[in-house]
């Protein structure tokens, strides 16, 4: 393994996995608090020969919308958005996500931000990539405490798509919508199937041979570090500081 490859950060591996999941999309939209998906979307945009539109919900500089925050949802409602990302305080084995509470909704042990657009975009966007860096029995649970957005729906409920996979710090799971179950797709470099099993709270399918997640190519790494990192710093300053060493701004 070359010296450069040894220096690949875990975040860069995750960005490369997510980039493969969204390849070929016409329009990728990214919500709040999603630096790795945003980096992957920028990478897909640089690499795609046909051009991918990338819209960052909270960044007017990085989207083409001119009709306010609602335009993303209106576009998604029409089927104009191909890919979106969600995370969850908890994600369960049926791809239900919880962005609200741990414990009972009326008397929670902990309260988190809220649904954002999940309860709508999970239905209207065909390809949803779930993303949670923390891979633990606390975050990946058998059953979520609160369903902010359901992983699957009965056939008569309008739904254009839903989750296609879940990327964590340890592995990539693919989601089988018909069975409402995850299947282990690959394990990231430096991690093992046993580790994935030990830290996952839900049951999942495992193939006979579990491949290792391929690291990003040298060209992708170069694009990420040289071209994409500075753009990320304006939107995800803390992430860009930690992963790419770009200092935080101070304007006060």
């Amino acid at each position, binding site marked *: 393994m070359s010296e450069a490859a040894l220096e690949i950060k875990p975040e860069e591996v995750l960005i490369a996995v997510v980039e493969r999941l969204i390849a070929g999309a016409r329009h990728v939209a990214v919500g*709040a608090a999603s630096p790795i998906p945003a980096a992957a979307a920028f990478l897909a945009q640089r690499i795609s020969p046909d051009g991918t539109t990338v819209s960052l919900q909270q960044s007017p500089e990085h989207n083409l919308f001119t009709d*306010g925050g*609602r335009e993303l949802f209106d576009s998604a409602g029409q089927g104009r958005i191909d890919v979106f990302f969600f995370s969850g305080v908890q994600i369960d084995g049926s791809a239900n996500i919880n962005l609200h509470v741990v414990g009972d909704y009326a008397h929670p042990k902990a309260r988190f*931000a809220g649904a954002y657009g999940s309860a709508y975009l999970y*239905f209207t966007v065909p390809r949803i990539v779930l993303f949670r860096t923390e891979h633990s029995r606390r975050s990946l649970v058998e059953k979520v405490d609160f369903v902010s957005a359901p992983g699957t729906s009965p056939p008569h409920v309008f739904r254009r798509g839903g989750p296609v996979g879940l990327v964590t710090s340890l592995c990539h799971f693919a989601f089988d919508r018909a069975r409402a179950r995850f299947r282990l797709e690959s394990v990231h470099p430096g991690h093992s199937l046993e580790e994935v099993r030990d830290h996952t709270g839900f049951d999942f399918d495992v193939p006979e041979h579990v491949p290792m997640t391929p690291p990003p190519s040298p060209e992708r790494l170069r694009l990420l570090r040289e071209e994409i990192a500075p753009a990320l710093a304006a939107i995800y300053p803390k*992430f860009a500081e930690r992963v790419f060493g770009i200092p935080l701004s101070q304007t006060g």
Partner: protein
Amino acid sequence: MSKLRELDAAVAEIRDASMLAVPADYAGVAMAATRALIRGGAKSLHLVTLPASSLQADLLIGTGAVATVETSAVGFGELGQAPRFAAAVRLGTIAIKDATCPAIHAALRATEMGSPFAPLRGIIGSDLLKARPDWKVVDNPFGENDPIVLLPAIQPDVALFHAPLADRRGNVWVGRRRDLFTLAHAAQKSVVTVEKLYDGNLLDDEVMAAATIPSFYVTAIALAPRGAWPLKFGDLYPEDTRHILEYLALAATEDGFRRYLDQYVFERRAA
């Protein structure tokens, strides 16, 4: 009659127990006005965020100004959770009407149109439907076996936001921040802070007029340069991330939050 006011006088249009609608961080949050509102002792507000909020909601909730918050999320994105909001929900000191982003857009749009409700796709199967008994699922009357959610219109008493420019007639230029149109159209009154005053009539120039809220929606305007600080304001200034991190560190405890207020909200008292 001029709509230009001093900041405190403009903010006085927001009465206790009002339904107050505010924009998300990307659209222009009136933070200077929010600090003035807190200094004025606002209370019992029904805060509606279009669709999410961070520091503004967390500050108002932390000071006890909010009785009910209607929101799709209160959080600081990658910087962390909203500490006073999370504590208030956990302790049950505020009522929460949890929503999802397009639901708040749609319910305000219903009011813009003068309609009593709006239909919206999605949501079915989410526990939000249990948390929101005022949202109803009906069968699409134009379809067959096609359930869809209906949302009651949200009718704010007052909207509060920050914009780049206003002219002396009370027209407010918002550029591409179209969410501010939604707020101004839906609310009975609008209180606006601006970076600068514009000489002339914004409606005389077609390019400017297309992005201008006409004065008849606007109740009061106050000049507040850097009025969105420490939040970002379009391409005029970025978020002051170090300040936000300082806030989050202090507001992790009630005592720390009080120290933050003394230093950054009530600072004028000492000056």
